[in-house]
């Protein structure tokens, strides 16, 4: 019915994704480790990285900081709508592409809603430094879902007409039941998922408050999953309400307790956004976009990422007052005692 781009798989093909799971140790075992160990073990150059959260909620910020300290080449980033996580990774590429580079983006949206555009996205795309494949939010969410449930594709009634479906690997067929056109979306099975959640046990059973975004789907779709959590709880506490578990231990490979691990983004029940911190990073990035000078952006990275050993070092620089302020704002959002 139309020319579709040539088919290829990024991350794992459906058959590779199945094989990866068959051969995997699925046992209920202690998966706690340091974030450095997790990033070093489960992320590799060239990987397709599935990013959890949505815009600036529950973005896996601490994991991106550790990835930047580590350095990676030629990553593919897959997400529906994201802000802070690709911001950090994109800015890292802007200041030193030899240390950290993104090859490709499969996405629906990279910006910050009320907090404005992502200058990193404009910088990388308008200079042609990354490949882009545009999808919609429902497209990307469905692609992760297809990957999570072992299907090679999933149908959608979504943006079947227009240029989105022409920018990507969507295939449009005649529905064999209704004989109307329907779009088929190829599954996404990333090599590794990076996810921040509210609580987890050491086996990787995760509780998410507020929107689950597409985190369960990305975790179950990926060959490996790194989870940071606000709170590490006992298995007995986590399973006392089994229906609260959004991601079962089977979908998780590494668990790290990182309070405020999504800061300066928000995490329901724990903290609201730091609009100011986000704006500061964007301002420094915009300077580089406009003047070509990376000094201010480099200074941010030197202070907050390269200048600390881990995310607790970053939080020390942010300071207690800021963190308590955001905690208080979030308690009001939730109308609850903390």
């Amino acid at each position, binding site marked *: 019915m139309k020319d579709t781009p040539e088919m290829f798989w990024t991350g794992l093909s459906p058959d590779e994704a199945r094989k990866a799971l068959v051969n995997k140790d699925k046992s209920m075992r202690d998966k706690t480790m340091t974030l450095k160990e997790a990033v070093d073990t489960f992320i590799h150059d060239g990987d397709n990285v599935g990013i959890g959260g*949505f*815009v*600036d*909620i529950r973005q896996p910020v601490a994991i991106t900081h550790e990835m930047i300290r580590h350095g990676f080449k030629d990553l593919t980033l897959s997400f*529906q*709508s994201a802000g802070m996580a690709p911001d950090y990774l994109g800015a890292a590429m802007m200041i030193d592409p030899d240390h950290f580079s993104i090859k490709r983006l499969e*996405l*629906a*949206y*990279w*910006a910050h*809603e*009320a*907090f404005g*555009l*992502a200058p990193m996205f*404009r910088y990388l*795309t*308008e*200079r*042609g430094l990354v*490949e*882009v494949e*545009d*999808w*919609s*939010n*429902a*497209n990307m*969410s*469905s692609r992760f*879902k297809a990957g999570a449930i072992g299907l090679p594709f999933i149908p*959608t*009634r*979504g*943006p*079947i*007409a*227009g*240029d*989105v479906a022409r*920018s990507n690997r969507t295939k449009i067929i005649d*529905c064999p039941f209704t004989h*109307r*056109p*329907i*779009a088929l979306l190829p599954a996404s099975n990333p090599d590794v998922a990076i996810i921040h959640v509210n609580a987890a046990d050491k086996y990787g059973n995760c509780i998410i408050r*507020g*929107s*689950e*975004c597409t*985190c369960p789907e990305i975790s179950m779709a990926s060959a490996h999953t790194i989870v940071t959590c606000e709170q590490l709880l006992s298995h007995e506490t986590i399973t006392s309400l089994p229906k609260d578990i959004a991601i079962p231990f089977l979908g998780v490979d590494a668990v790290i307790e990182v309070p405020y691990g999504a800061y300066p983004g928000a995490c*329901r*029940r724990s903290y*609201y*956004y730091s609009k100011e911190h986000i704006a500061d990073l964007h301002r420094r990035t915009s300077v580089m976009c406009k003047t070509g000078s990376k000094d201010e952006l480099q200074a941010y990275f030197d202070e907050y990422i390269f200048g600390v050993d881990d995310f607790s070092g970053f939080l020390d620089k942010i300071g207690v007052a800021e963190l308590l302020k955001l905690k208080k704002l979030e308690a*009001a*959002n*939730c*109308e609850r005692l903390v």
Partner: protein
Amino acid sequence: MTVSKDYTAQEIIIVAGAKVLEDKRVVFVGTGLPMVASLLAKMTHAPNLIPVFEAGAVGPHLTVGLPVSVGDSKTFTSASYVKGLNSAFEMTQRGFADYGFIGGAEVDMYGNLNSTMIGDFPDGYQKPKIRLPGSGGASDMAASCEKTILIVPHDKRKFSAKLQYLTSPGHLDGSKDARWKAGMQGSGPYRLISTKGIFDFEEESHRMRLLQTFPGETKESIQAETGFELLFADNVTAFAPPTVEEVRLIREEIDPTGIFVKRA
């Protein structure tokens, strides 16, 4: 109700957007002015309006303040359902969303929208002149909400004869049953609200048609700032300016810190 003499272009859009919404209907609310318009509708003629947000919240009473994001924690408190993005879009695909608000950087005469790129598609797709954020959920809402309400600031380049990229499908080429034939659901663009007036899409041609002018505008002034030929309703009327109370609600109750509604 006293008419306000002190309102901004954003505020008249918000008031017009609110008025399009019927009470007791489900509205899929995008970020920004649609949130303010939906809250204003809830506080005025549509107290039982049901907002749905794409991160997954259904029907929150929004008593804890204006969300800054469609995934804001404020959308989950008192919600009647919270799963994730798939659930919100699946419900919409099923037919649960009566209205959806969408915006874009460009719109054409059939209500198709661009929020992806300025430049040459497909040849310049990998190196656009200006890269916009991308579809997000806009193209999904455009495909599957029953009726969509478009919000686009009015200027000649934004109201364009030919989009540089078609992100969110409207009435496509305007031909009969074009959306149905393409495989989509929903009846497509229902209203467009710009900074100059309110439009619908004529039943046969699906072309943009001026219904109401905002204060200070005429058919001619609006056509002059539109990059294609507009249709005009038989009886183009003047849209009443916001009332003092509407402006007060926006400034004092809904968005007191100016998250989306700028004072200037």
